[in-house]
């Protein structure tokens, strides 16, 4: 199957999406975002000082001109300087995005894999005690505030009031010799991962269970069972494969958020210099240079995710493809 014409068609089709995202986001930050002027002004400014800052910030330019300028920045990948931090935006992001990725990835992968395993178990024993137990724990995970989980886990695992096994702060992945150290990584990432898991497992398990239960009721499973296939085989081969579309949808659309949004709360409680804090600070202060880059990158990622999701749908459900051909 030649996939390239499809990919190119989709990519061209994504241009309006990029324009839409950037335009809406830019509108929001220009007209409803914070005005950085008053953050950057000295005490006792004159009207001239105010105008001057607005010129430096580019606020005096017409909107359409600023928006076109933004598009140019996106195309050339040159986002300029953060007005708050006096640092090139690209530098800030290239430092922070890998950190956020390393921070979120274990929790994300484990959170989905474990959730699918648990959901399979729950489905298999539907209505019986393993199902009830798993689902009760899922509900507990869903019911507790993330904030409380972070604080509690920090006390339990990291503080001297608890087990004191892991660090509270001081994200540092290099060993004494200055190389990347897996041990250091695990040392720093464990508690954040556990906290993320605690919260996301509940949601994920619940969702995957619903999907699998639906699959299980399908006629083909009943047929498969009737024709003597083993339960395990049914579970893994037929059910999982057919449940892939909702699962992929869910997983794929979390990816851009993980890369770009990071996790503000985890980062600020564990002192991890990730992209969540940078984005949040930029939103709160109105640092448009940073926001423009973050939003631009998020929307590009979304386009890629949409594209990949479409391709995967075809792999898992060839009927969509055959219909289109018809």
């Amino acid at each position, binding site marked *: 199957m030649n996939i390239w014409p499809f990919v190119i068609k989709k990519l061209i089709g994504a241009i309006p999406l990029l324009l839409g995202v950037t335009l809406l986001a830019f509108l929001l930050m220009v007209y409803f975002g*914070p*005005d*950085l002027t*008053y*953050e*950057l*002004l*000295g*005490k*006792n*400014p004159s*009207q001239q000082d*105010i105008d001057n*800052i607005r010129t*430096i910030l580019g606020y005096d330019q017409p909107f359409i001109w600023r928006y076109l300028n933004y598009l140019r920045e996106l195309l050339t990948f040159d986002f300029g*300087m953060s007005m*708050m*931090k*006096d*640092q*090139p935006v690209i530098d800030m992001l290239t*430092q*922070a995005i890998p950190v956020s990725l390393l921070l979120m990835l274990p929790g994300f992968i484990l959170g989905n894999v*474990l959730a699918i*395993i648990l959901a399979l*178990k729950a489905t298999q024993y539907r209505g019986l005690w393993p199902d009830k137990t798993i689902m009760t724990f899922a509900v507990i995970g869903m019911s507790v505030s993330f904030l409380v989980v972070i*604080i509690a886990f*920090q*006390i339990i695992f*990291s*503080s*001297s*009031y608890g087990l004191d*096994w*892991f*660090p*509270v*702060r*001081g994200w540092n992945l290099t*060993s*004494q010799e200055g190389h990347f150290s897996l*041990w*250091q990584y*695990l*040392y720093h990432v*464990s508690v954040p991962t556990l906290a993320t898991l605690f919260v996301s497992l509940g949601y994920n398990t619940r969702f995957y269970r619903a999907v699998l239960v639906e699959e299980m009721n399908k006629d083909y499973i009943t047929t498969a069972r009737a024709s003597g296939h083993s339960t395990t085989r049914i579970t893994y081969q037929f059910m999982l494969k057919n449940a892939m579309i909702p699962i992929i949808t869910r997983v794929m659309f979390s990816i851009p958020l993980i890369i770009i949004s990071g996790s503000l709360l985890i*980062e*600020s*409680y*564990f*002192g*991890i*210099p990730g992209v969540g*804090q*940078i984005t949040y*600070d930029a*939103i*709160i*202060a*109105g640092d448009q240079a940073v926001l423009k880059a973050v939003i631009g990158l998020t929307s590009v990622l979304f386009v890629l995710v949409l594209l990949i999701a479409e391709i995967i749908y075809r792999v898992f459900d060839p009927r969509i493809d055959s219909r289109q051909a018809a």
Partner: protein
Amino acid sequence: MRTKLTLTLLLVLLLSACQQESTESTQTLRHSEKKVYRHSEDDRPNSLDPIKASTVYSNLLVVNIFDTLYAYKYLERPYALKPNLAVDMPSISENGLVYTIKIKPEVRFTDHLAFTNGQGREVKAQDFVYSIMRSFDPNNGGTGAWLWQGKIVGIDDWREAGADYDALIPGLLALDDYTIQIKLTEPYPQLTYTLAMGFSAITPREVVEHLGQEFGSKPVGSGPFKLTSFNSDTAYLAKNPNFRAEPLDLAYEGYDPELHSKYGIQKLSGKAPPFIDELEVHFIKETSSRWHSFTKGNEIHYTTVPKDKQSAVILQQEPLQLHPQITDQYHYTYGLEAGFVYHGFNMQDPDFGISGDEVQNQKNHALRCAIRKAHNWSQKNRAFYFGLGQVFPGIIPPSVPEFDPAMSIDSVEVDIEAARTLLSDYGWTADNLPLFEYHVSGSVLQKQFFEQMRGFMHAIGYPANKIKYQPYPNFGQFNKAVKNRQAPFFFMGWTLDYPDAENTLQLFYGPNETPGQNNFNYHNPKFDALFEQSRILQPSTERTALYREMNQMVVDDCVVISGLSRNKIHLWHKNVITFPDREIVGGFHLRYVDIIPE
């Protein structure tokens, strides 16, 4: 089932393995000879460019990376200035208009590519001139120009003429490589204080021009430390090995055996700072995270006690006594902040301020005074400041020498009956009271402040549906509303730039109205006249009398509900020798920090 078990086992194994590893690595750290001190602050700085050092957080780093002409003595209280890069205190002409300052020779900037051969060159008087000029260059977006604008001869003209760094400013000259001359338009007794602020720190022109705006994140100076890296959580600094050797003279710095010997500071006598090899400043907003990092033992060495830890730390309030398990493990000191918190009215607001109508003015005055009488400082103090804050009347806080301990405390006493009488005397009823909008930068804490204020207002019969919470998503938007006079009532804090009450009185000076610092838009010709009269005076009883007269005017006009100075408790590990101060001494104390090897 089996896979799950294997997974769990694997996880446990991994965790315990890295547990072992970590203990080893901390041990190796302990044995290494590097002295690393980890400081903590409760918020983070933005740019580290001196001309933008408008927050305590950026100032803290700026005075450690750069040199200022003057600094504050390490231990002396009340705060006293001392020469830093300057050789001596300035010599001032008879009329108080010409300052001549000599700087130390052989002081070098730290290395940077932009210098010839990449080696830091000597700091010259011209560098100081250049550094002050930068604040007046409209392309730089500096925030410190207000300190000198209209005060140094020719500096405003220089800006108007296009800010050409090669042009001369008659009032700001380098007479030779080591002599600075400043000429003033009128006497400015606070000038020397401004030369101890981060805003006047000395920057090398080559590097600034090489890096452009990026200088704010890659600063290069001649201070005791140099920046190695900087992100949203931590600033890593290393000792500047070439920092001029100036042995610590304890007597000169204000050492008092009774106050300071318990911290071991005398051990440092005669040694030249900085004593530590690496300085880390951790920016930790979340109090629980900061506390756990501090009590862990191998992370941050210093913290101020967060509000939520008061019950764990304080045993008794008057006099302050801490729990033995805290004092056994940590050193502590506590002190009044150089600043205060207050509620203010916008006097231009038609409902609460001054309008054209004299009768209405009196009614509004009564309303403001009634609200002030309803405000219960002691309850606020107890709920939000450990009960340790010092409530004082007026706008001259206890941390400045001009503070008047004998001033009547009527304006900070709650008096519900008097407030109700005042309202009814001036014809205010539940029906005609105006809508009371409480503008604030939204947060949970601010909402609690608001709810308590609403409770106070309720006590004098202000109807609940006329009290409105108006949060802004962030400080920038709140500040904009205040500067555009949209907030009739606001809650704010002020941190002093220098220990002189002029710094708070100017908040009420008419010409400083918004967008200036007079957020109250208070215009009182008598106040303004006294202010103009007092601001050119050197510290004297005469000046103090004028200050107190102005203070009384602000109180009588019920412009503010003021104020409370917070008391902060500082804790640090016992293997650290320091005497922390986050107020006016700012970051100057960090160079004197030492770690006792175990």
